[in-house]
């Protein structure tokens, strides 16, 4: 009898633990109604100017599309000062492989273009809220600049998953 009662007790504990685990795994989204995107920095690794601009412009576009923010401000925009719950996105190039569209077309296995950016999401006081390396790639089809589109989509997804204009659990 004692054996049965302890078995039931343990199974109940395990069931509760399993049931609770998916809830605890879900991240709490930080409140952020606006984001300001700084120009991508490439101090150590020399990045072609068109890549730098394409990363920045695609990032702004993707954050406007799927970031979930009420406002997306550009680098230096004076209106961002008045924004409540502002998050500043600071990106630094950590890796870059130029690749070749011709090689990709001819071989299909070589010539991939890849760019890795260290993204820091900071609050208005400069405190880092989230940091993550995000990679953009183009392996098969498309020009080299398509890697910047891939990076922008992934970064917007990271922002969407971690920040929300209203504080809640996803």
């Amino acid at each position, binding site marked *: 009898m004692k054996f049965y009662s302890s078995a039931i007790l343990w199974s109940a504990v395990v069931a509760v633990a399993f049931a609770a685990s998916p809830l605890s795994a879900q991240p709490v989204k930080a409140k952020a109604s606006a984001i300001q995107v700084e120009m991508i920095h490439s101090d150590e690794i020399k990045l072609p*100017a*068109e890549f730098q*601009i*394409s990363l*920045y412009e695609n990032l702004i576009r993707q954050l406007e599309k799927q970031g979930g923010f009420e406002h997306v401000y550009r*680098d*230096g*925009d004076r209106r961002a000062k008045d924004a409540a719950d502002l998050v500043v996105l600071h990106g630094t190039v950590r890796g870059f492989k130029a690749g070749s569209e*011709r090689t990709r*077309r001819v071989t299909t296995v070589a010539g991939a273009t890849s760019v890795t950016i260290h993204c820091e999401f900071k609050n208005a006081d400069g405190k880092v809220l989230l940091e993550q390396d995000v990679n953009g790639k183009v392996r098969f089809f498309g020009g080299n600049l398509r890697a910047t589109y891939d990076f922008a989509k992934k970064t917007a997804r990271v922002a969407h998953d971690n920040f929300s204009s209203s504080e809640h659990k996803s």
Partner: protein
Amino acid sequence: MKRRKFLVSIAMTAAFAGLSVCGAKAQQSSKPVTDVIAITGLPGVKDNAKGALTVENGKLHFSYGKKSSEVNAASIEDVVTGEDTQAAVGKTVSNLSMVAPYGSGRFLALFRTKFDTLTLQYRDENGALHGVIFALPTAGAEPIKKELLAQGAHTTVVEERAAATNSSSKEPKQ
């Protein structure tokens, strides 16, 4: 008295000539470059729109179809030129050729044409930074860059070169 009048008239003529030269310079315009593609970043212009690019009256004009967009040269913080290549055949033909038997279609991928790139960074009236990328026919970017610089735009490339020259000239002294 006559000499003074003569000198005054010469001075006035010189001043008038100077003003007219300045006016001519202010209304300077570059030769329009056609077949330009605004790859991304130009406000109000769809990506990959094809049009013509000119620099006149201190502004960079991009006209496509019946529309046009312009950027004030003085607001441009950085203008950089570069070059790239693109497939010589169109996108559709290129994609269709990929399914040709025995990989024969890949042969077409070897043929590529060169083009120039013109990259700008400028600030709008709110201080917000914008980036624009243009693709131009070969040797089309450098004259536009020179004209923009003459009409008030800035570039970091010249400064970098100057800094490199300065550092190299200092090195032998040490």
